[in-house]
């Protein structure tokens, strides 16, 4: 265990070794980077070639909570985590900012930051994007396996939680903001201004379904395999994942509910005590070039935060890549975007309270 002596303080910054030590240590989620057949990362290699900065790229960011638990004791002790850059989900960025665990970005080193899509410029947890820049974004919707639903699509949270046909074969995401977010929207609330009561009301519905034996469980990323195999009939899902799987499994489908669905981003941040901050910023700048980001998007198929990527992809000669550019889940049109909502930033008290309420439901 690790008693955190936190509080909102300025993140400490050591002397930057960027010039002496031409490296940058980056922790990212697995499969979040374009990859060649031999397992190398073309864009990273190109970056090193361009700048002479070597990138130690680690895919050891599997889970926000777990990653936080690993670095938190170091950050609390004011020590270097050994990383210069990592990729945290919105709400985690909020927590890192309020604990003073990440450093403001020096935008002078990131001229390409201007390519950030306008809708992402101002987020509630990081107004003005002082600390973070988005890496990839994703929708949460409802996925289903027709082989297990009796051939019917699942189109709403209500159906998911009450359809007798699905009893015991429904999975919800353990990611509170996605699951509860969908529920709140179905109850007609908006994610940018709901109240604690609204939150509690949404939870009640889920709790009732759980008590009735409707739920198979709460899952992280594992839901995808379960859905694929038919171990699970329907689930709250990250739409992009299921869309990809549907290529190989015709029974799979995904719904973005009419009442609304969540959009969340994973964001590049530079931790306190990072020793190669400038190098990290140069790397961010490199990826904020649409030409570079297009290569990543072409491979990972998530929402790109960088403007102009779609155009680059459309110009490709590869029909698969062009198909990506035309996908609603990667480049949604305005109508789709209008239904997407972002979960509002929570105060630390709210964060703890809502999280604990949700966990009581998950582990009860």
């Amino acid at each position, binding site marked *: *265990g690790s008693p955190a002596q936190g509080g909102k303080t300025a993140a400490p910054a050591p002397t930057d070794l960027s010039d002496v030590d031409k490296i940058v240590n980056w922790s990212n989620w697995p499969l979040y980077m374009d990859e060649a057949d031999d397992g190398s990362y073309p864009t990273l290699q190109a970056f090193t070639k361009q700048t002479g900065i070597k990138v130690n790229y680690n895919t050891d960011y599997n889970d926000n909570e777990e990653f936080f638990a690993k670095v938190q004791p170091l950050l609390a002790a004011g020590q270097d985590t050994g990383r210069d850059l990592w990729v945290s989900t919105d709400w985690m960025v909020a927590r890192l900012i309020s604990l003073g665990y990440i450093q403001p970005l020096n935008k002078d080193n990131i001229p390409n930051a201007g390519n950030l899509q306008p809708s992402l410029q101002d987020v509630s947890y990081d107004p003005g994007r002082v600390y973070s820049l988005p890496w990839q974004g994703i929708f949460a919707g409802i996925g289903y396996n027709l082989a297990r639903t009796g051939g019917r699509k699942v189109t709403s949270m209500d159906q998911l939680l009450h359809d007798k046909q699905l009893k015991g074969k429904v999975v919800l995401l353990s990611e509170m903001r996605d699951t509860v977010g969908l529920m709140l929207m179905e109850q007609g609330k908006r994610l940018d201004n709901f109240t604690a009561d609204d939150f509690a009301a949404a939870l009640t519905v889920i709790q009732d379904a759980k008590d009735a034996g409707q739920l198979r469980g709460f899952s992280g990323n594992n839901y995808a395999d379960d859905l694929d195999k038919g171990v699970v009939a329907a689930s709250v899902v990250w739409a992009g994942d299921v869309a990809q799987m549907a290529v190989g499994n015709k029974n799979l489908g995904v719904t973005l509910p009419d009442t609304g669905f969540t959009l969340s981003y994973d964001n590049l941040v530079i931790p306190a005590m990072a020793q190669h901050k400038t190098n990290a910023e140069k790397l961010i700048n490199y990826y904020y070039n649409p030409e570079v980001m297009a290569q990543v998007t072409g491979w990972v198929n998530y929402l790109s935060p960088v403007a102009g990527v779609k155009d680059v992809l459309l110009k490709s000669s590869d029909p698969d890549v062009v198909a990506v550019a035309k996908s609603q889940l990667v480049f949604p049109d305005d109508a789709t975007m209008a239904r997407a909502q972002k979960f509002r930033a929570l105060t630390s008290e709210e964060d*703890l309270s809502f999280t604990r309420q949700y966990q009581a439901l998950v*582990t009860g």
Partner: protein
Amino acid sequence: MAFALPGARPRKSAKRRRGLFVPAILLLPALIWLVFFFVVPTIALASQSLQTGSIYQGFQFTWAFSNYTEALSTYWSQMVRSFIYAASATVFTLAIGFPLAWFIAHRSGRFKNIVLVLVVAPFFTNFLIRTLAWQTILVDGGFVANVMKATGITGFLNWIGLVPNDSLLGSPFAVICGLIYNFLPFMVLPLYTSVERIDQRYLDAAADLYSNGWNTFWKVIWPLSLPGVVAGTLLTFIPAVGDYINAKILGNANTTMVGKVIESEFLVNLNYPIAAALSFVLMIIIIVMVSAYVRAAGTEELV
């Protein structure tokens, strides 16, 4: 008794010194490991379990015994459930593991070592992969599910409440199956080492004295394999109480075990004091049960 001759006295003390010296040397490395890497952090953990605060405000040591009462009152049902699952899994693992251990020790001939490796083989494929493989095996409409449904086993399991729906997956049944499967090596290996020592002559003597297989087992084999039985049940039961992966992957939303609770208090809720308190409660209950069990089994005297 004779008078002690000169020279007899120092012998006693010399022996005693030697008698302590050897075990001390033997124990030293293990003790160093346990004390430095386990006892010291555990003391820190103990202090944490009595703190209050939050990650944003920081934690203060306040002798907050309320953490313990809170942990217990909130999570007693998961705690009880964990012990029930672990105990049933241990019993079944023993029931399966004993014949297997006997088979390996006495009937597998020159394939003994290969069979031993087969028992540990599951661990060579990652736990995630093999538990997922269980999903493939038990999946609705699969061979196993169909056979069990056709033979009425599923119905029976449903009736006794181990399978809430018509699906084998996502049930206490699947969780216990997973526990049995994953902990079988922990039962079989210690059992095997004990059972292998049992001299055929004792079995001959028992058969000669009118013992049928059943009696020979309970009156001779079982008491002689007690060290292995105790070791195996402990190695199965203790980790099984804290396990939650099986419950998570094979169970449903209502089969959460206490390991999962501690994890979520720790990782998600950031409620370190409660997580620490809960760990302590768990450890203490386990240790109390284990001590009582070892004493009841009488293995300390048994040679």
